[in-house]
């Protein structure tokens, strides 16, 4: 917890640098280079300061990179941005508190995440509606009757507390998802209005920025994968998932938001993959089902042999979609954070330039990956729709 600030700070400044480099490639000149070098030096000094801190307080609280990384990658109740004066009397947290909404046996209970006071080890007990809630590793538990403190089993799971029936909290990821759709609305509704205002349909302003992307989705994804006659039906879905995934991938890379890892969360990818699966299944025509259950053009024993494989394949497709996006994005976050952790694992400033340089490199790659993964999710969805609607042509 102590080190969160350092990480978010480092990565943020680098992302700013990175953004500058990417947005203005033609101006990636000596001055930018100089700027980068200065930033590295500056950060080394800062990291040193914090590393010393960690050393001093490190007796009782040893730095555990796995825990830190997992806390970053997973969801959380509040949006923690920074901790000031860590480990001192006047320690202060900069957070955006978010509502915790749980549905239990006693009905709906709502309270602010600030009630936990940034505790996620189950120490802070919040009493609401006759129930006592604790936050154990960013998961709300309800303490059983009579228990005054959370007890853990060998694997670290609470033994005397249970999860609420439904946990509908507006978590960090949900909050960032809403921010992202607000941004999407802003971009695309503005673009649409620009088209409406011009009478010759000539794009201008933001519309000329989004139009190539939309045309790309149409001409490079939907048309070749689904076919000229049917692609129009799927265009809204394909465009929406493409931009939704892409913008959330990008948001995951912005460190000031503490890397809200929405598209690297299995619940998010699970939902999108399920929607793709449902659309595929419902738009499957006779030819599609025939290819699954009774493969044409092969001998009968082969047909029987292929049937279970095809049925498994039907489910593996969306599962692979789900896992691919989740694992790619999570892996990117884990690598960046692991490189940053090196400084605190080795407790030396000497490693800082190395880990900063490497995490900068990985961040650049991740920026490309954000677009590639959105593209792959979309193109594979389109491919599955195309398979489901393909007409017989033997």
């Amino acid at each position, binding site marked *: 917890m102590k080190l969160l600030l350092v990480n978010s700070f480092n990565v943020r400044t680098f992302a700013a640098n990175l953004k500058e480099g990417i947005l203005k490639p033609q101006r990636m000149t000596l001055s930018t280079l100089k700027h980068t070098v200065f930033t590295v030096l500056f950060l080394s000094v800062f990291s040193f300061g914090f590393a010393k801190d960690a050393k001093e307080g490190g007796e009782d609280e040893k730095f555990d990179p796995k825990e830190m990384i997992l806390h970053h990658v997973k969801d959380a109740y509040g949006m923690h941005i920074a901790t000031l004066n860590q480990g001192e009397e006047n320690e202060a947290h900069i957070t955006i508190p978010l509502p915790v909404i749980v549905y239990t046996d006693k009905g709906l209970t709502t309270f602010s995440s600030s009630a936990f006071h940034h505790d996620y080890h189950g120490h802070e007990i919040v009493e609401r509606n006759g129930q006592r809630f604790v936050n154990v590793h960013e998961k709300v538990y309800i303490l059983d009757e009579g228990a005054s403190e959370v007890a853990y089993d060998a694997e670290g799971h609470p033994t005397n507390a249970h999860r609420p029936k439904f946990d509908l909290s507006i978590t960090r990821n949900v909050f960032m998802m809403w921010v992202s759709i607000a941004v999407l609305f802003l971009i695309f509704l503005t673009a649409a209005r620009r088209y409406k205002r011009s009478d010759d349909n000539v794009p201008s302003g933001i519309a000329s920025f989004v139009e190539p992307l939309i045309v790309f989705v149409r001409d490079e994804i939907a048309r070749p994968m689904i076919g000229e006659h049917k692609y129009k039906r799927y265009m809204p879905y394909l465009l929406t998932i493409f931009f939704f995934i892409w913008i959330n991938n990008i948001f995951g890379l912005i460190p000031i938001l503490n890397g809200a890892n929405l598209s690297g969360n299995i619940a998010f990818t699970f939902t999108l993959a399920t929607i793709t699966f449902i659309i595929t299944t419902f738009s499957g025509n006779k030819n599609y089902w025939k290819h699954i259950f009774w493969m044409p053009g092969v001998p009968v024993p082969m047909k029987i042999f292929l049937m279970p494989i095809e049925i498994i394949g039907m489910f593996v497709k969306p599962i692979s979609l789900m896992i691919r996006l989740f694992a790619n994005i*999570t892996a990117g976050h884990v690598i960046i954070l692991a490189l940053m952790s090196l400084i605190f694992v080795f407790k030396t400033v000497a490693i800082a330039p190395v880990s900063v340089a490497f995490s900068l490199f990985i961040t650049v790659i991740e920026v490309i990956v954000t677009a590639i993964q959105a593209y792959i999710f979309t193109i594979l969805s389109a491919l599955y729709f195309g398979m489901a609607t393909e007409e017989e042509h033997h």
Partner: protein
Amino acid sequence: MDLITPEFGLVFWTLITFLVLLFILRKFAWKPILGAVSDREEGIKNALASAENARKEMENLQADNERILQEARAEREAMLKDAREIREQTIAKAETEAQEKASKIIEKAQAAIESEKKAAMAELKSHVAGLSIDIAEKVVRGELSNKDKQLKLVEDMLGETKLN
């Protein structure tokens, strides 16, 4: 394990958010944008097609013009040829007619000359006959004493006067 267990809360909010996003963007963004893009593409396609059409029409028109010109030229040629023929025919006809007329006139003239000659001859004969009689009378009066001489004279004279 925890990392790959989808949490109900996030699934729930993602589903709702995504459906709202899909619905609103579909209605207010994708429809107008895709519509505008395809309208414009259609417009460009139409403009190109109409330009092509115009070009073809132009070509057709030019071909037409060429054809009409050709026709006019051919017509003129034909007319000139006709005219030349007619002229020649007319000239030939006039010539033959003139020839015919001339020959007729000549024939007539000849016939007239012939008849005049005949008439003149006849008149001359009658004159000569009258003259002869007169001469004869005079001779007879003079030489009637000699009958033989008279007769011989007449005989000689008649024999000499072999006209025509």
